């Protein structure tokens, strides 16, 4: 096609794309183990560089300056964001990147339509191209705006769900308007002149953007693991359907892999809360719930508060300790103090592991990333199914910044909002120390009977201050 690789056989381009596709698959395979995962990421990046490189060289680039400038600006911004952002701000950064991918897909599909209309006239558009473009525009714009709203929530700008009247009716209404715009585009009903601008497509994009905002705004911060996983799937599906617009194999393969990944994660997150996706998206909880007097009564006279000195005495005699981190650890940036405490205990021969609930934090695997950053080896991080049978042989459980994921109400009260949710059975240990700022309820808005149990002690305070106090006290006793 008159690019720099002119003279090579036509099949060269799809063959190179095939190699890229294989590199993505091999890269993902290496992600099945923490030791090989870094290498997998590099292999995947190589596949990407290959696909982009061959594309730049293959096609006749009439405007090399435009393309070069765009690549430089994008790479500069991407590098700057990735390098300058703190680990604690990574969830929102991932949200922003995800949105950009969806937005890019939506723009490409639009630009392709505009280009085709310019070259062939409106009658030159095939129904497959317009249909795939409509799907891309819808998913891409929802991903773009939804991800930016989610990133804002993860950044703590407006964490609480924002509800509006007739919420679900409005969402369905806006979705039907977007779908109608898509139908106008595909069937080319002459309601609106198609024109050189392909107006129905941009109308679809505008409406879908509004939909993206409306969908995510009512969802609370603690449901973000589900939202991010779902938007991750959307960004992949948007890329895959762009592949249908452009007839491009590697876009379809890579986009579909991402779509599958996001959907699987979405399902895992929903199951970990025993809620359906529909319930998370449309029936969300997490509104400001006032604790009624009767509920607060369970704490009356049963809550025993403790001090760092007392906890350290317990730690000194413990043989097995499980640390259960929650979102409070991330907020307080307590991971380094927690890791130091674990290391001190380990040095003294104590068996220390971390029990991590799948929805602890704001992203799937959020706690693991924070702990890894603080040098905790992945062998010490245990999943719920692994850790639960071991609590009965555990001397001390230290819960820091977690609440709903250690709430026994999930088993005992079928009317509770967390009924049936798999939780960490920390109360089966000999002693449970719960580090929390107050007795206030977690995201589900319900009290936690664990705090009032006979073997539970409350260590009130900020996660980092409390963990640091334990570290200092423990060092003093050595």
């Amino acid at each position: 096609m008159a690019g720099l690789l002119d003279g090579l056989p036509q099949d060269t381009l799809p063959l190179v794309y095939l190699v890229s596709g294989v590199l993505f698959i091999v890269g993902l395979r290496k992600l099945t183990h923490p030791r090989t995962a870094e290498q997998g990421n590099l292999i995947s990046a190589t596949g990407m560089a290959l696909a982009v490189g061959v594309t730049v060289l293959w096609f006749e680039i009439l405007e090399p300056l435009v393309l070069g400038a765009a690549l430089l600006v994008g790479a500069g911004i991407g590098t700057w964001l990735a390098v300058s952002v703190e680990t604690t701000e990574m969830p929102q950064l991932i949200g922003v990147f995800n949105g950009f991918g969806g937005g890019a897909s939506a723009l490409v599909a639009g630009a392709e339509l505009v280009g085709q209309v310019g070259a062939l006239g409106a009658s030159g558009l095939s129904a497959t191209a317009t249909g795939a473009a409509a799907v891309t525009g819808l998913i891409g714009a929802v991903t773009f705006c939804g991800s930016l709203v989610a990133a804002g929530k993860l950044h703590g700008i407006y964490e609480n769900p924002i509800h509006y009247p007739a919420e679900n009716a409005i969402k369905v209404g806006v979705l039907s308007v977007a779908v109608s715009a898509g139908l106008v585009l595909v069937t080319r009903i002459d309601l609106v002149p198609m024109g050189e601008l392909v107006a129905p497509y941009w109308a679809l994009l505008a409406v879908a953007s509004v939909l993206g905002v409306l969908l995510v705004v009512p969802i609370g911060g603690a449901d973000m693991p589900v939202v991010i996983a779902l938007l991750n799937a959307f960004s992949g599906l948007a890329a895959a359907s762009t592949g249908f617009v452009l007839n491009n194999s590697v876009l379809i393969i890579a986009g579909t892999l991402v779509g599958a990944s996001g959907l699987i994660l979405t399902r895992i997150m929903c199951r970990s809360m025993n809620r359906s996706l529909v319930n998370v998206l449309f029936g969300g909880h997490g509104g400001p719930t006032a604790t009624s007097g009767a509920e607060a009564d369970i704490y009356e006279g049963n809550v025993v508060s403790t001090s760092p000195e007392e906890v350290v005495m317990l730690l000194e005699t413990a043989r097995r300790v499980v640390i259960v981190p929650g979102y409070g650890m991330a907020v307080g940036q307590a991971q380094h103090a927690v890791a130091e405490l674990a290391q001190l205990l380990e040095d003294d021969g104590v068996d220390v592991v971390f029990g991590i609930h799948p929805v602890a934090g704001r992203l799937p695997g959020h706690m693991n990333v924070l702990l890894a950053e603080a040098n905790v080896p992945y062998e010490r991080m245990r999943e719920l199914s692994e850790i639960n049978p071991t609590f009965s042989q555990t001397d001390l459980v230290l819960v820091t910044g977690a609440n709903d994921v250690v709430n026994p109400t999930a088993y005992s009260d079928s009317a509770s909002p967390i009924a049936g949710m798999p939780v960490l059975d920390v109360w089966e240990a000999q002693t449970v120390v719960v580090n929390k700022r107050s007795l206030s309820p977690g995201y589900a808005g319900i009290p936690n009977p664990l705090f009032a149990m006979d073997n539970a002690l409350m260590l009130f305070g900020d996660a980092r201050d409390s963990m640091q106090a334990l570290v200092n006290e423990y060092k003093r006793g050595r």
Partner: protein
Amino acid sequence: MAFVENLTLFVLAGFLGYELITKIPATLHTPLISGTNAISGITLIGSVVVAGSGHSTLASVLGFFAVVLATVNVVGGYLVSHQMLRNFGRRRGE
């Protein structure tokens, strides 16, 4: 015909993705999200063609912004994943 071929790729890649992703441990779910996120930036190769094609000024402008967004996604996504995964691969004391 192209549509059926595309659909074939889509369906097979979907099943392959399911098999691959279900084997990835929960510990690596955040890097998985940011890594797959970077892969979804593959849409960049579509934007490269559109931005450089010189179809029309409008197509070039749209292509320009698409390339910027997709490149941010690709470069940033891989770098963030790399930083996270380096922590997992690191042995204690290094």
